[in-house]
């Protein structure tokens, strides 16, 4: 049975890590509900998606969660 290559974009990296995903991207600081970014931030969403796709051709590192910073996401007011 052949598999299907996958990449997970996770905003719950501790939970994802338990399943040792084959490829995973954690956009640091993005909240649950904002996996690709905030509404209307098309450039940011596209960049996060492109980074996730980039893991398909990156050297294999199964179980590792790649963390990236996207400063334009900003922070949530408390």
């Amino acid at each position, binding site marked *: 049975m052949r598999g299907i290559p*996958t990449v997970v974009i996770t905003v719950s990296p501790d939970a994802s890590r338990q399943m040792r995903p084959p490829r995973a991207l954690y956009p640091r600081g993005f909240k*649950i509900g904002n996996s690709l970014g905030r509404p209307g931030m098309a450039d940011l*969403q*596209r960049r996060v*998606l492109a980074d996730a*796709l980039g893991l*398909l051709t990156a050297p294999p590192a199964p179980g590792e969660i790649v963390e990236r910073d996207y400063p334009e996401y900003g922070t949530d007011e408390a």
Partner: protein
Amino acid sequence: MSQMSRRCVPYTPFDRPLDRATIALVTAGGVHRRDQEPFNIADELGDLTFRTIGPEVEVADLMVTHHHYDHSDADRDINVVFPIERLRELAAEGVIGGVAKLHVGYMGYSMQLKQLYDQTAPAIAEEIDRGSRADAVILTGG
């Protein structure tokens, strides 16, 4: 969870240039078309079904039914959990070869983890493999 945490997801090599690859989206964020049956969030055990979404779907025709995350941002812009417009743009730019014929939404909150793992996940994989012919899948939660 101890049974689940002993498993890991097998690694399948990706064996082609990205710009020749067809990509599908699978989200646990409860995304579905407005004309499809919503996920049953009244079921305490969780809804084990999934919905298929075509590549040309209008984002106005998509919605979220999910009671375990704040999806108010996804309600405004579905791309934050299901980036179908962004995927179409990357295909138009030639970054990826194409957008798969079929994408999947399901409702990932479940008290029936074993059934989700044993039934729903393989059914989604089968749909992606046969119906979508995708070369790779991008997974999102919410």
